[in-house]
């Protein structure tokens, strides 16, 4: 099966619903559409934040995401995948990123969306800095995210770095 895929990294806001709908619009083979939207929260831990700023590694970010989208398409029977990730300054309540997956059946759509999120969190070269009342702070990577990504490792598969 050939799946359509879209990967965009941009500073501009995006319309998650409209982007997801492009995967199912005008066709009748999509039975399941999963959309994940990551939204900027107004707090980090117990502290309020005024905004977050996302730094990224241009070129590598696109390549890493495209590589994982291709892997998702090879693992699950998908019809379409869209990943959009913003960089720059984002205020609470605004969307940071989205993953949408379309398939004939829900299992593939859910699994691929979770797989992509786990890898985006741990392998895509983006770094979040939050504006707290006492200054700007880089967000710490979470061990739980590494563990979540680890569950998708294929037996015998070798990753270049952990």
């Amino acid at each position, binding site marked *: 099966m050939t799946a359509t895929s879209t990967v965009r990294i941009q500073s501009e806001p995006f319309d998650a619903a409209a982007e997801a709908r492009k995967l199912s619009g005008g066709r009748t083979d999509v039975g399941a559409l999963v959309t994940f939207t990551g939204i900027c929260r107004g707090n980090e831990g117990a502290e309020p934040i005024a905004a977050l700023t996302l*730094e990224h590694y241009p070129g590598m970010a696109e390549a890493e995401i495209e590589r994982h989208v291709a892997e998702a398409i090879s693992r699950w029977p998908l019809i379409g995948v869209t990943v959009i990730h913003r960089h720059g300054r984002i205020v609470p309540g605004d969307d940071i*990123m989205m993953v949408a997956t379309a398939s004939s059946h829900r299992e593939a759509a859910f699994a691929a969306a979770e797989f992509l999120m786990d890898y*985006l969190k*741990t392998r*895509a*070269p*983006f*770094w979040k800095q939050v504006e707290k009342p006492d200054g700007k702070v880089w967000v710490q990577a979470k061990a739980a995210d590494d563990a979540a990504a680890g569950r998708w490792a294929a037996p015998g598969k070798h990753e270049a770095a*952990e």
Partner: protein
Amino acid sequence: MKLRYFAWVRERVGKAEEDVEVPGGIVTVGDLMTWLASRGEEYAYAFANPKVIRAAIDKTHVKPQAAIASASEIAFFPPMTGG
């Protein structure tokens, strides 16, 4: 060889990128981090704990044991926190 720094590695080094002449005997990414740490106070601070720093050669994740011989761009950065 072009070096790029991101997030707090960039802030500590004080620049986003630079071109460097790497001396002989520097074979791996790990060797390169040790050498960089010796280049001054800001580098010593940035590379004080090389275990937490990730690296990419020509925009692909690599381990510290990776050879740098054929690299044209090497990037150093903290663990990723996107998504």
